[in-house]
């Protein structure tokens, strides 16, 4: 049983006014997606004040990085966001490659993009499926997980593992794909097009689902900027920033794809439904990108030469990529002598999204608290690192 002392050991408790009651939600709670905790001050069913409490999954990845060579840190990056491992690998590899001035062969870049777009669909499926489950619809989650299974099979062929795919290497990738991989991917995409329509008919336009999400947790564009939102959450608020366009990396400038934005299709711009629908639309765009990759990829080497003792030049860099949960930034500091990084700071989309909770929760019903939080698609290990 949680005593008052346990609550106080993490969060300062202010005296309760009038009819207020204190509800401890989490850290183990089905809707907190991992271990995140909220202290909610409720007046009836209205949330008067909320204190988010994180850190339960802190694995000190940044401290670990200081004790090992650059290449040894690669497997830790796919534990930063376990739903989008290749994207995190890619972000780290690009940051180091940029600082060290390493070249990447063409085929390796295509394979990296292929892996990260597959992972983006994978991650968004979990995001939208879990959102539906959190507002009370269990079936869509099962459908999303079923589709994710096909992607995991593809990623297993490509990277060797189903989860925590440690795929990207400096100046390349760890292995080439077998001959029939592209035809299998094509087959999956043809199936996935049909699935998206099915999923929309199942849940996206379901009246109860729409009512639960529209006009809930409205975040305007200016607010989204002040909360440091990024990725789909920022775009849902009507600001069409996508780092694949604004800060191009890999071959994304050559790709033809749209950047979905929130338009308030069922309610107001920046409500929870917009955040949901932007993710659905982004899956369509990822399918487009993968089709283009499949038509453009050519035979060639997948790895260039990397110095055995990799030492980055003295100084610091900040490199960012567009991960499924938004801006994934690596701030790397090198002392110019050591083969291990002096300091690595990882900026993640989920951590930034969490900064909005205390303000947005104010005045919400408890059921909407769950809906808003699920629509942000926060993954706990990415918050705590």
């Amino acid at each position, binding site marked *: 049983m949680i005593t008052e002392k346990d609550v106080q050991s993490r969060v300062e408790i202010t005296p309760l006014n009038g009819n207020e009651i204190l509800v401890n939600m989490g850290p183990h709670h089905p809707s907190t997606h991992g271990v995140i905790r909220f202290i909610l001050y409720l007046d009836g069913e209205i949330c008067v004040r909320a204190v988010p409490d994180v850190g339960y999954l802190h694995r000190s990845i940044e401290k670990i990085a200081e004790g090992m060579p650059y290449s040894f840190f690669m497997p830790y990056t796919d534990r930063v966001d376990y739903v989008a491992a290749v994207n995190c690998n890619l972000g780290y590899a690009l940051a180091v490659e940029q600082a060290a001035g390493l070249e990447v062969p063409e085929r390796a870049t295509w394979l990296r993009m292929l892996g990260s777009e597959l992972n983006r669909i994978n991650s968004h499926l979990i995001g939208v499926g879990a959102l539906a489950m959190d507002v009370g619809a269990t079936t869509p989650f099962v459908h999303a997980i079923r589709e994710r299974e096909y992607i995991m099979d593809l990623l297993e062929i490509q990277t060797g593992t189903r989860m925590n795919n440690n795929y990207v290497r400096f100046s390349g990738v760890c292995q080439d794909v077998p001959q029939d991989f592209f035809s299998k991917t094509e087959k999956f995409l043809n199936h996935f097009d049909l699935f998206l329509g099915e999923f929309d008919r199942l849940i996206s336009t379901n009246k109860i689902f729409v009512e639960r999400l529209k006009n809930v947790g409205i975040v305007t564009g200016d607010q989204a900027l002040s909360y440091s939102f990024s990725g789909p959450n920022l775009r849902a608020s009507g600001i069409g920033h996508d780092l694949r366009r604004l800060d191009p990396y890999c071959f994304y400038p050559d790709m033809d794809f749209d950047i979905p934005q929130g338009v308030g299709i069922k309610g107001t711009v920046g409500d929870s439904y917009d955040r949901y629908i932007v993710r659905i639309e982004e899956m369509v765009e990822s399918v487009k990108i993968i089709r283009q990759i499949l038509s453009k990829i050519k035979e060639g080497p997948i790895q260039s030469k990397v110095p055995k003792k990799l030492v980055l030049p003295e100084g610091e860099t900040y490199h960012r990529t567009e991960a499924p949960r938004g801006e994934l930034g690596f701030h790397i500091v090198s002392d110019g002598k050591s083969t291990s990084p002096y*300091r690595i700071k990882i900026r993640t989309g989920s951590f930034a999204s969490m*900064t909005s909770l205390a303000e947005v929760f104010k005045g919400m019903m408890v059921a909407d608290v769950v809906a808003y939080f699920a629509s942000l698609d926060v993954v706990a290990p990415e918050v705590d690192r």
Partner: protein
Amino acid sequence: MNFSITLLEKLAQEMAPSTSEIIQRESKMPILKIDAKDLRKVMLILRDNPVFEMKYINNISGVHLTAIKEDGTLDLKGVEVLYVLSSKLDFSTIAIRVDLPEVNPEIDTIDDLFVSANWFEREIYDLLGVNFINSQDLRRIMLPDDWQGHPLRRDYKENASYNGMPTTRPNELDAIRVE
């Protein structure tokens, strides 16, 4: 990478007579180094001046600066705080660096100017021990409130135990292992 050096030069003019210096000029990420006392002035220019319109914080991170002396011990040189901000208009990005002294590192908070700054600052306070003056809510964020020390400092020594729980444990197989 669209880190902008022209914006940094404009900012350096705008914040005169306060002094500043552009470092890493030739690299992909030029940085404007400013004094800690000018931070709030600079952030207000960045946020409110129509030339910049920097309403967006990408990242705030801290680095404990050290060097290794000839006798192998650490020479502690203070803490660096790096602010990365982006423009609302075209998302062009700039980096601002502030170096704080080793003893009692403290800097003004910017969490009243940017909402998300509070969590970034809390993380730096938690892991590096920087005090953000006038912060609305400066508590540990990753570690428990009764944790001793700041782990990302280079001179950090972990305590042998936390609340009666040992932080290391002996390897039982050492007993049968031959040296």
